[in-house]
């Protein structure tokens, strides 16, 4: 039996995860000690804890050695993973802001809510650094299991129970498929490390590898709700409490993409011939079907759910052009999509507080009595469409550039799909804007909607991020582009 050598821990590189784990324990301890009295402070502590975990991310980003490798190459902290961790943490902070009033006013368990939210974020930050099948799987479960529970958080609402149940069953099914694929890849390559797998499957092909790749891709396609594995998403998004929906639609989906980025970028690049057709078909189907169904929705949350499926298609497409900056385009798109989508959810929640409904028709005449919210929502909708200089236009540009530069057959076809679907999507996004600006307000709606401070703050953060990153995307591009150092090379401990 070989002697055990304790791995040296780079505490600085692991600090964000440690802070988050500490916050989870503190929240749980507070609940245990104070019981009901903890309700007043758990939300603030969760928010502060999330902000606290941003500090080590900033110090790491500005340190001299931005790329740190641990555990024999299984855990890598580089500029892209730091950007993604910051994305997860800031998204979760906005979700906490969305939750404070919603969860406080409803019939919900509060302490557990924040504990589970932060532990899910912990799983996401681990995912951003994982370069190993086992760490990826552990991170995936750590981020999914709390999310299953959060989706069913309105305990006495049948639709929320349905949301949690569907999400749970589909998620477990996806995990099983994923594990099957992973076991095939491991069995063929003899290593769980992505870089080793990439080397092994690049040298020799076998039917087992094809099966492994297809199963792994299908498993993650469930997580990112790509067509035809999307059927859980609209019901889950509609039934779950709205802040949880925002969390699932933004952070949880981004985590699925991050896992895909690691697996495809590190391991499957040499088997592009197997990967490209699957991803291209998934992307084209997601875009088209997501958009076509979104056209017919009358409920904004369901519309956002289907548009999220379509947007997932836009983000899947550049995988086809992985060697031509496609991966960077996905990271950029993820960040901009998160800002816009969180903002849209925040405004819809603020409006729904008054109207008690998220039907598009109930938004009529919003501009006449609540102009601020109407303008904010219009900005987010225009960003979804991709109108410069608002957020997602730059994401769309990066996606198109990667697709066109790669000049592959599949990439060219996908570029046409992206262009067509952007046009289709404009109709239903702008239809909501039209309702707000031109339709008549319902009877007796004249006083402006009162928006709680935390929601105001959430809308503000999303608005600033959407506009600032759209006008000046330079820093985002720099952070999303990996340095020349190959992260895949396993270095010593």
């Amino acid at each position, binding site marked *: 039996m070989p*002697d055990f050598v304790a791995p040296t821990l780079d505490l600085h590189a692991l600090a964000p995860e440690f802070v988050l784990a500490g916050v989870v*324990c503190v929240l749980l301890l507070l609940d245990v000690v104070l*019981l009901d009295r903890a309700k007043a402070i758990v939300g603030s502590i969760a928010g502060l804890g999330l902000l606290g975990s941003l500090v080590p991310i900033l110090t790491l980003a500005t340190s001299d050695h931005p790329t740190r490798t641990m555990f024999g190459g299984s855990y890598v902290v580089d500029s892209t993973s730091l950007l993604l961790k910051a994305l997860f943490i800031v998204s979760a902070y906005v979700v906490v802001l969305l939750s404070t009033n919603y969860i406080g006013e409803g019939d919900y368990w509060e302490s557990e809510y924040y504990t589970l939210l932060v532990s899910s974020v912990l799983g996401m930050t681990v995912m951003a650094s994982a370069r190993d099948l086992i760490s990826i799987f552990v991170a995936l479960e750590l981020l999914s299991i709390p999310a299953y529970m959060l989706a069913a958080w309105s305990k006495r609402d049948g639709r929320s129970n349905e949301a949690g149940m569907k999400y749970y069953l589909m998620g477990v099914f996806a995990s099983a498929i994923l594990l099957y694929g992973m076991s095939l890849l491991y069995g063929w390559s003899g290593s769980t490390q992505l870089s080793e797998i990439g080397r092994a499957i690049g040298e020799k092909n076998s039917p087992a590898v094809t099966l492994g790749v297809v199963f792994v891709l299908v498993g993650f396609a469930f997580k990112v709700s790509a067509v035809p594995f999307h059927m859980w998403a609209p019901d889950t998004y509609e039934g779950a409490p709205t802040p949880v929906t925002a969390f699932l639609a933004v952070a949880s989906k981004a985590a699925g993409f991050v896992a895909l980025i690691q697996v495809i970028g590190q391991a499957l690049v040499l088997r592009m*011939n197997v990967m490209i057709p699957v991803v291209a078909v998934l992307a084209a189907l997601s875009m088209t079907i997501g958009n076509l169904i979104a056209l017919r929705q009358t409920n904004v949350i369901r519309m956002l759910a289907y548009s999220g499926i379509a947007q997932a298609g836009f983000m899947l497409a550049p995988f086809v052009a992985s060697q031509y900056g496609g991966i960077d385009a996905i990271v950029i798109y993820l960040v901009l999509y998160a800002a816009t989508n969180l903002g849209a959810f925040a405004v819809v929640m603020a409006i729904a507080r008054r109207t008690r409904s998220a039907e598009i028709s109930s938004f009529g005449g919003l501009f006449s009595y609540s102009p601020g919210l109407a303008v904010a929502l219009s900005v987010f909708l225009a960003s979804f469409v991709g109108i410069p200089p608002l957020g997602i236009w730059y994401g769309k540009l990066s996606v198109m550039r990667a697709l066109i530069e790669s000049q592959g057959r599949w990439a060219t076809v996908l570029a046409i799909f992206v262009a067509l679907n952007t046009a289709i999507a404009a109709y239903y996004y702008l239809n909501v804007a039209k309702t707000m600006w031109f339709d008549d307000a319902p009877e007796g709606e004249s006083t402006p909607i009162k928006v709680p401070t935390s929601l105001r703050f959430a809308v503000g953060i999303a608005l600033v991020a959407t506009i600032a990153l759209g006008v000046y995307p330079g820093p985002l591009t720099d952070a999303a582009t990996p340095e020349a150092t190959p992260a895949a090379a396993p270095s010593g401990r």
Partner: protein
Amino acid sequence: MSSASDFLREYLTVLILGGVGAALVGLLLGASHLLRPARRQPGKSLTYESGVDPVGTGWTQSQIRYYVFALLFVMFDVEAVFIFPWATRLEAYGGFGLVEMGIFVFILLLGLVYAWRKGVLKWV
């Protein structure tokens, strides 16, 4: 067009696997349907309850508390699974292992304390 035929050959594997999977299910179910004798008796269509005559219907409510206790049991079971191998090689893992195991046990204990404070351990 060699790349297209390559691509088709790659995916033939997936199709074959799917076909074999479906055929296996059909074969097993079909074979057992053909081979088994079918003599219907009222006793055979009763709910199987380990040889005892069933009481009531199949849709009875069971105590949710059993479920919580089962969950707590799993928690300690998993703890034991990790602690035993560590304990057999305690010296080899040294201080590092001790700290790691301390953190692990602490987090599990937190779960137990949570269950205790929320009144799960009381059998009212």
